[in-house]
């Protein structure tokens, strides 16, 4: 029951993209086409879960025992950057089809603040291992849900008549605002 609450809250109520404002660069950058949005979502789910687990273990098994918590930021970003490189090499060698579909999105993830953000939130909220895993996976799912929905709406822009000065990012942000308004309706559900 507790995990269900955590899941609903991470996907809908405090959606990482629309409510916590994390990961907005890929949100606006790769949402012009549906396929790229789906590819990015896959890559984010994969990397975010792994990165959150590894940084959690590093924090509790290395940083805390040696009282190095103040190095958290540097260590986490290095772990994430290395992890992304490793995943890229590993996928290239062993699962080429997956590598081709995720390909160009993987390096972009290093600077996706949602990944580092979730890793930091896990520590800040003092989750134990199982809560951390559930929170990370569902946050990534929430990210994917918002990204794919947004890409679907954005594809319609091609045929819509938008005033010249508002084309591109400006209308994208306003649309995101309206989506966030819809997600605001979930508040108080749990």
């Amino acid at each position, binding site marked *: 029951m507790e995990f269900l609450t955590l899941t609903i809250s991470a996907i809908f109520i405090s959606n990482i993209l*629309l*409510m*916590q*404002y*994390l*990961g*907005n*660069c890929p949100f*606006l950058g790769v949402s012009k086409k549906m396929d790229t949005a789906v590819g990015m979502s896959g890559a984010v789910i994969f990397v975010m879960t792994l990165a959150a687990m590894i940084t959690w273990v590093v924090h509790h098994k290395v940083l805390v025992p040696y009282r190095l918590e*103040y*190095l*958290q*930021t*540097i260590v*986490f*970003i*290095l772990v994430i*950057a290395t992890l992304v490189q490793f995943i890229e090499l590993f996928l290239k060698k062993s699962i080429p089809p997956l590598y081709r579909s995720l390909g160009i999105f993987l390096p972009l993830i*290093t*600077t*996706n*603040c949602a990944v*580092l*953000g979730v890793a*930091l*939130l896990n520590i*800040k909220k003092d989750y134990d291992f199982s809560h951390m895993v559930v929170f990370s996976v569902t946050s990534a799912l929430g990210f994917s849900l918002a990204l794919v929905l947004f890409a679907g709406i954005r594809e319609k822009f091609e045929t819509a008549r938008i*005033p*010249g*000065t*508002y084309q591109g*990012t*400006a*209308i*994208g*942000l*306003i649309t*995101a*605002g*309206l989506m*966030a*308004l819809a*997600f*605001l309706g979930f508040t108080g559900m749990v």
Partner: protein
Amino acid sequence: MEGSLVQEFKKGLWEEIPPFRLVLGLCPVLAVTKAADTGLGMGIAATFVLVFSNVIVSLLRNVIPNKVRIACYIVVIATFVVVTELVMQAYTYPLYEALGIFIPLIVVNCIILGRAEAFAGKNPVLLSAADGLGIGLGFTLSLTLLGSLREVFGEGTLFGHPVMGASFEPFTFMVQAPGAFVCLGILLGLMNIVETIRTR
């Protein structure tokens, strides 16, 4: 040399003002502009990191091998972010609490990595410092503007002082997430209008 220093500094204030001209680093822009003072604080913190990381990256630009440059830039940036984090925790604790995880997240602010990659990695120290300062101040201005707008309409105050009179009913929408997106979108569109009028 002097002319180009001023030029590099000035371009950050209009031509390439983040986050409007360079649409990068949106997460902190949206998240910390609930009020004018958090926006200003975030802007100053990011400017500090930007100037120092630009200087160090520029000093090391001939030492860093091309293949691992991004990783090196990230380490340089992360170092300054930790410095900022510790200084803020010690001297401006309420602001540190208000900004929360967005201080460590300066590390992945694309503006800073973007300037290291696009400018500081190729230019001498003084020019890079001017570039960092200009872009940083532009970022601070934008954040303060956005924060002021949202605070004035959402709370009826500016830097905590009431400005709208007693009969004003605040639009709570503005200080919530949707308000951030819509407000930034409208400002971006307005800036495009100003730009079209200027170039006409």
